[in-house]
């Protein structure tokens, strides 16, 4: 279980120069943690395989949040999933980016009036790139990744910093909607 909150990041720890150089490597080697919650996940196989070949951009799937740079949320998020998503997001090593696929992450999509599905992902975790569509086609998904690369290049993909700075606000939203983020469930006791 998560045991620490954010430690304060001093300026020398950030070490600007490393970030500058690092940005070049980061945008050319983006590893994704695919959080395939919804139907948009079906767009990823063509994006990865020979049709669109994500690997030529240096992207690839990764197994654990520790190794990954991008948290790819593909589709609707139920309350139960959102708790796990927040936990996973907080486990990722910085810098980290979030890409939301499909209209469900933007405004709830076809589940906008469901009692179990949240409507707006960026209230809970910062989202760097949204890809609209229900579901977005594969070109759009690829375009979203390229947008993210551009954003990293122009230093506008600052979601992880935003999350750090406005942690209280995000936390408040999470608690307002979820009640409790870290729950106990009987199958993992």
């Amino acid at each position, binding site marked *: 279980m998560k045991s620490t909150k954010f430690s304060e990041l001093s300026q020398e720890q950030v070490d600007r120069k490393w970030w500058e150089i690092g940005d070049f490597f980061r945008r050319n080697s983006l590893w994704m943690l695919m959080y395939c919650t919804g139907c948009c996940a079906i767009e990823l196989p063509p994006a990865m395989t020979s049709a669109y070949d994500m690997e030529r951009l240096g992207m690839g799937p990764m197994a654990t949040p520790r190794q990954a740079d991008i948290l790819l949320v593909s589709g609707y998020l139920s309350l*139960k999933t959102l708790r796990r998503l927040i936990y996973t997001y907080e486990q990722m090593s910085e810098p980290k980016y979030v890409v939301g696929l499909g209209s469900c992450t933007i405004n709830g999509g076809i589940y906008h009036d*469901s*009692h*179990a599905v949240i409507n707006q992902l960026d209230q809970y975790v910062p989202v760097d790139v949204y890809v609209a569509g229900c579901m977005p086609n594969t070109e759009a998904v690829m375009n979203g990744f390229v947008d993210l690369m551009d954003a990293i290049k122009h230093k506008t993909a600052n979601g992880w910093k935003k999350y750090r700075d406005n942690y209280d606000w995000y936390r408040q*939203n999470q608690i307002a*909607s979820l*009640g409790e983020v870290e*729950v106990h469930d009987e199958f993992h006791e």
Partner: protein
Amino acid sequence: MMNSTNNALEVITLVESKYNVVKTEHISKYQVAFEVIREDIHSMLNFLKNSGWKQLSYLSAIDWPEEDKMELVYIVFNWDKGVHIQIRSKIDRENPEMDSILPIFPGCKYYEREAHEFFGIVFHGNPDSMKQLILEGWDDIPPLRKDFDPRAYSEAHFPQREYTETFIELNQQESKQEKRAARQAHIDEVRKGGKK
């Protein structure tokens, strides 16, 4: 190998000869539904289990606010004959209670918990039936009851994205707003008392 249509018919004669069935529905070649009184359910499930319907496929409920009833549905399946049997029974809606079928089908444990969570039915005899299973920290009326308004819940709990209210009428389509308003009115009515 016998014809499965015969199987279904055979089941109907078998069950009707033994139990006082309120209504029988021969849905398809492989499905039969019986509506029985609540007291018969246990002995009937026991009987069916002994006759080969060994698998409890599903247990759920349907909310009938107009009739002020809650209908329980048990689905059992026979692997030899390939026939699904639904057993339905209507119970009181205000205080939905039922005795657990845990002694007959131990696998019903989680179905009953789910039914309790989504419809508020209390199963006596299932020790865990009041524990939460799926909805973590739910604080409203059971969400699959018809008087529950998911939209209101969603609006109250989840922040909505703000859009500017500009509508374009396309091809003189009937506005969905009125339908929506009518549905809302109906829901409100159900919520107030549920009675006509």
